[in-house]
């Protein structure tokens, strides 16, 4: 083989690898579209319900927020590699929900101003999660406990503490303005009357309500901002670059002077803070705080990450993948509700989708590297 031939086959191989990796990244979008079409056909023919509607989109987005926030936390940890997976985030979500609800109940009972109550409750819930996150990170990075074990242990500790604070019950008796944040919208559109921010226009009567179109649910807006921040951190900053490097080759990272321990500690803390944000969102949506608030989300979140093409071996993965993974799972959940099916089917469906995702991913990788 001459030099020329060698370099041309190399170039061909490269374009083929790139093409395959594009397919690998795009297929979840097709899958999502396909699923929406299937749901639309079934719901039209069987229940005579229009699935593709503005309301559905909004519903799916709201469903997706929690999976997405926890999914982002897992994305960071799984990219950091070396067996990294955080099994505590759903309990971290729970304790953030409990602590914020606890603070707000006390402040509401003491008749403190609403804005202050919300601010203290939200920041209290989120700030508390720094503790489990930092402990997880330190255990993994400095004490070198396998992430699987340290986060499992930390998760149970958080669950226990949340149960102790809440005495095993949901903390309700929340101010009603809390629910307005969690279930309200950033913007409302009242045809012929115009837009109004945050609140339903005061002039609207009960009869007008059905004409008012809610735009951009608050929780979706918050999640969007957080998602963009995490995308920016992973894709653009040096900290993100170091997380990928550590996930790719931790020994090389140590030798090239990357502050591995501090990067990992920050990654785990960031993951916990994301869970904390999901926790206070939960509290504001359901106007109560419960220790098991995040219980079903952990595995859905990991499923979303896997569907999004993030490698469980670390070093590879993108935020947009997790977004699409979360949307697919939320569509399944919402679609089953619209079809009037038993919600338990969601587990079966998500399980099948995850397995398909992994098969497609592995086939793609094998072809790329052959």
């Amino acid at each position, binding site marked *: 083989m001459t030099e020329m031939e060698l370099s041309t086959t190399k170039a061909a191989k490269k374009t083929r690898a790139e093409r395959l990796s594009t397919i690998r990244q795009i297929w979840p979008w097709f899958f999502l579209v396909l699923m929406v079409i299937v749901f639309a056909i079934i719901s039209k023919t069987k229940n005579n319900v229009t699935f593709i509607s503005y309301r559905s989109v909004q519903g799916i987005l709201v469903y997706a927020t929690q999976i997405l926030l926890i999914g982002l936390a897992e994305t960071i940890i799984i990219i950091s590699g070396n067996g990294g997976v955080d099994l505590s985030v759903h309990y971290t979500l729970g304790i953030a929900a409990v602590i914020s609800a606890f603070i707000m109940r006390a402040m509401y009972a*003491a008749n*403190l101003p609403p804005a202050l109550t919300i601010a203290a409750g939200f920041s209290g819930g989120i700030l508390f999660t*720094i503790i489990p996150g930092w402990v997880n990170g330190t255990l993994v990075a400095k004490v070198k406990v396998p992430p699987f074990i340290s986060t499992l242990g930390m998760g149970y500790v958080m669950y226990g503490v949340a149960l102790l604070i809440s005495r095993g019950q949901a903390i309700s008796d929340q101010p009603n303005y809390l629910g307005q944040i969690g279930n309200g919208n950033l913007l409302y559109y009242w045809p012929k009357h115009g837009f109004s921010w945050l609140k339903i226009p005061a002039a609207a009567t009960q009869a007008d309500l059905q004409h008012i179109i809610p735009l951009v649910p608050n929780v979706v807006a918050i999640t969007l901002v957080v998602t963009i921040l995490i995308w920016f951190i992973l894709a*653009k900053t040096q900290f993100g670059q170091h997380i*990928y*490097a550590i996930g790719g080759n931790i020994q*090389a*990272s140590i030798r*090239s002077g990357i502050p591995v321990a501090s990067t990992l500690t920050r990654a785990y803390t960031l993951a916990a803070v994301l869970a904390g944000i999901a926790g206070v969102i939960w509290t504001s949506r359901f106007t109560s705080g419960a220790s098991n608030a995040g219980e079903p989300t952990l595995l859905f979140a990991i499923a979303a990450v896997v569907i999004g093409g993030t490698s469980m071996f670390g070093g590879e993965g993108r935020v947009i993948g997790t977004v699409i993974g979360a949307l697919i799972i939320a569509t399944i959940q919402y679609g089953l509700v619209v079809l009037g099916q038993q919600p338990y089917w969601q587990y079966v469906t998500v399980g099948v989708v995850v397995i398909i995702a992994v098969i497609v991913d592995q086939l793609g990788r094998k072809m790329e590297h052959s």
Partner: protein
Amino acid sequence: MKKSQVSMEPLLRAVNLTKRFGGLVAVENVSFDVRPGEVIGLVGDNGAGKSTFIKMISGVYQPDDGEIYFDGKKVSFIDPRDARDLGIETIYQDLALAENLDVGSNIFLGREMKKRFISEKLSRIIISSAFALPLAALLAWLGLQFYKIPGLVLGLLFGLASGFVLGWLFGSVTQIVDRKTMMGESTKALKRLDIEIPSLTQQVRNLSGGQRQSVAIARSIYWNAKVMIMDEPTAALGVSEQRKVLSLVRTLADHGVPVIIISHNMQDVFAVADRIVILRRGRKVGEEVSAETTPDKIVSLMVGAETVHKMGVIPQALESNGGVAGA
């Protein structure tokens, strides 16, 4: 091929280096000069002390006895970073590349170029205070409502503390990696060494063994390597790839960067080395100018001449077997 202008002032001098591990003497009184522009082959059987010796001059081990001089000054290394700071770069067989990242990211691994608009320290301070001040105010006010003055103080402290933790967490958000400049610099670094890699944006995983070697070498050179140590650079490479790596080694020497190359492969050593240093059981048993010696002589020094004769092994046989001596 060998036409290096060897100047007489040694850049790196190891004098009587000795390393013991418990009762075992791994390296005993080995001295060694490296001059600018020369390639030195370091050969020896397994357990001859090659790695231990290399690890002493690259700062991994501290010698029990002896001195190291770099550029005429006596130096001692606490850890590998000290040696690297001086420009003594070691490329191990695993190359220390992150295979999931592209070529540019690997050349700048751990030393990424950043878009300069704010330093990390300043950004941490700004973000810390942006969080800390409102939080402290809020918590202090709350503390005052519920617990009077102690509450105020506690609230203030908690607020400030959590603000600073958030600064630690998010302070690096302003440190944006400048991929474009990194790519440009990498292209230049590779071009300077005549290294051809089809696309710098692809993952290192998709490169051939020789190309990966080249990336690792280019990285060291970019970061100002003054002495290169390479551990079995041609192991696990195909024949044409081996040739490319060896010619890259010569290119380095011609650029004035001396290379110490550890190898089992006599052909490789004779193809690139100006001088060959032979270790046996922790001692230096020979130092030969490669133009004035033969592979047979080197092999007999490596295994000990008397052993060769006793076992009746014909050195030529070793050489024709792909030159692998001492597997």
